[in-house]
């Protein structure tokens, strides 16, 4: 360094700048950033040039033209006259629907099985272990095929549907059940439900305040259930029972009328739930095992009953261990829902694929796929991070 300073003479401060760690790190970062931008620009330019040379139309304008194909299952109104944009929205909503349903069910099953693996009862423990080891070691696609071809296709045909209570039917075309058609004045029922939720929150905070002040407890759970069911029911009778049922009926080909859970949705939902539940069970088990035995013993020593000890001491601490890996499983479930394509459920990949083929806009559709999946995953992880922060240990 010193010799260089001597040789450079007047330029000495600039040499010093070159060896300044801050200066160097800024330079490195700028160079890397420029190289990255140049690389992306080259990619984009090359793509555009190649597309133009091959005479392939590009741009997202195609999203506003008529799709022309039908979709078997949609949460929002869709006909073949709708646009490609709407078709993609239908696919996105279907993906989200399967993901949400799957996440809820997988969490419930996973929790039960996870606790079951720690049970003192040998049979429950054995069944839970077999469940985990079976589903965890099979590729999810095979689980989907198992439900689709193995279980639901094996159900009786439409002609010999299994009749279930309340006018519903089960056959190889899915689960058919009556549809409720709401009449006039039905708006009172959701309003009553919202009022009930507000009341429940109010009762909860009052009960907590009272317990902390006086030590007296209030049966919050039972009151909440009574409110949540009772108020809408009351509204239903007060408004003069404004609902009629549309039952599924047999026609030449299918059962018509009512509502249908198609086999594609049903098998995808069951397969993803059962598959992911096996991983969640292990996460729950790890979480509970991760809470040291001393915590339980201390809770017992304070006079808590086993159930309270589990609910108040063990589970909150186990949650802290379980939530980060749980978030990964939720993301996996969402991404695995793209396997729907194998059994023909119209999810984002399936509808995007159809769009890709009808329009030939492969670059645009792949970009849409990436952006939408990324957005869904980022929202899921943002929520799980927020939840994790909420249950994190607050050190006092």
């Amino acid at each position: 360094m010193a010799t260089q300073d001597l040789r450079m003479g007047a330029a000495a401060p600039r040499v010093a700048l070159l060896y300044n760690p801050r200066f160097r790190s800024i330079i490195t970062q700028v160079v890397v950033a420029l190289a990255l931008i140049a690389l992306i620009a080259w990619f984009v330019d090359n793509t555009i040039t190649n597309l133009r040379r091959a005479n392939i139309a590009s741009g997202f304008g195609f999203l506003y033209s008529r799709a022309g194909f039908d979709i078997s299952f949609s949460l929002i109104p869709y006909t073949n006259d709708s646009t490609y944009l709407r078709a993609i929205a239908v696919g996105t909503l279907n993906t989200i629907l399967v993901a949400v349903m799957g996440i809820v069910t997988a969490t419930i099953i996973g929790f039960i099985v996870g606790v079951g693996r720690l049970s003192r009862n040998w049979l429950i423990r054995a069944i839970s272990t077999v469940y985990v080891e079976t589903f965890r070691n099979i590729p999810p696609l095979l689980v989907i095929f198992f439900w689709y071809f193995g279980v639901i296709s094996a159900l009786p045909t439409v002609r010999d549907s299994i009749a279930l209570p309340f006018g519903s039917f089960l056959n190889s075309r899915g689960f058919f059940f009556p549809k409720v058609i709401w009449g006039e004045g039905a708006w009172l029922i959701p309003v009553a439900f919202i009022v009930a939720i507000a009341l429940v929150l109010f009762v909860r905070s009052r009960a907590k305040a009272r317990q902390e002040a006086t030590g007296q407890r209030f049966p919050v759970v039972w009151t909440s259930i009574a409110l949540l069911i009772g108020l809408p029911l009351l509204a239903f009778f007060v408004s003069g029972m404004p609902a009629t049922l549309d039952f599924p009926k047999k026609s030449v080909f299918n059962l018509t009328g009512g509502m249908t859970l198609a086999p594609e949705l049903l098998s995808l939902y069951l397969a993803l739930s059962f598959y992911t539940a096996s991983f969640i069970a292990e996460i729950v088990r790890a979480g509970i095992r991760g809470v040291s035995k001393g915590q339980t013993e201390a809770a017992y020593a304070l006079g808590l009953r086993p159930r309270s000890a589990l609910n108040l001491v063990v589970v909150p601490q186990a949650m802290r261990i379980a939530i980060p890996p749980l978030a990964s499983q939720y993301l996996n479930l969402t991404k695995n829902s793209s396997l729907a394509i194998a059994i023909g459920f119209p999810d984002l990949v399936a509808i995007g694929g159809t769009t890709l083929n009808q329009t030939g806009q492969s670059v645009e559709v792949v970009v849409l796929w990436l952006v939408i999946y990324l957005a869904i995953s980022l929202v899921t992880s943002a929520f799980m991070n927020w939840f994790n922060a909420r249950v994190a240990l607050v050190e006092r």
Partner: protein
Amino acid sequence: MKTIIKAALGTALLALGASAASADTLSDVKAKGFLQCGVNTGLAGFSAPDDKGEWTGIDADFCRAVAAAVFGDATKVRFSPLSAKERFTALQSGEVDILSRNTTWTVNRDTALGLNFVGVTYYDGQGFMLNSKKIPGVNSALQLSGASVCVQSGTTTELNLADYFKANKMEYNPVVFEKVEEANAAYDAGRCDVYTTDQSGLYGTRLTLSNPDDHIVLPEIISKEPLGPAVRQGDDKWYHIVKWVYFAQLTAEELGITQANVEEMKNSENPEIRRVLGTEADTKIGTDLGLTNDWVVNIVKGVGNYGEMFERNVGSGSALKIARGLNGLWTKGGLQYAPPIR
């Protein structure tokens, strides 16, 4: 997932593949030493592997004819089985040199997709098939209101289906699959009442069902489906070669040149036959195309004329037993017509 990967790979090829999609396909193919041909994953009569793993069918044979014209050897072909969804990206990105996969010629595909269809190797139309044992009494497509219909995604079939039911004010429930095999399996398992695709495809599919005789193909044809091979835009030389291979097969049938008699036909006195087979003095037809002058001889030796190719794969020589109908030569009441080779 696999589809995404394939689509993404295709897209990446579009982004990077400057060399893959170069504008001189003939030189590329000659340098490689074989023709890469995109075919169906399995459609009896068009392109399906036989019990020895050899690709058979009109579409597969057409690729062999092109290879025969280029190399003088019909076996210098490698086949890429493609789903309906993968096919265009595969051709656009240069993964295959020619797409010969029962693909319907439409204006959108000719323009927005950057393809060039070379001709119609099979005139088809969309129809419906159902199980007459399970659903007796239905003998017209107009009685199909309320049916579940199995269909392959990303096809013109899917769009025609929507149009047909809409035009006739009928309802239906589409069950859409990505692969032919999945759609076939679901129809066979009773997931759908009706199966729809091109009529030739229905006959081909029927052979693979568990009880072929229970299934009937309804009489209605609801669309025009001109099926033909396609190449990339921007390479006229290659486009002409593939187009004239098809015309050469038609011309050979018209002139009565067959696989069996092509050698003796070379000595024919008929100037037209001599011109087509390149035995005329100072002929330049083959070399002008960028091939050798005996290109038609090679094609006919390799796979036969159009009629032979048809009868062997879908006609009387096959299990499908489809009549020539629209696919007969123009001289026999069909639509197959080739411009003169001169």
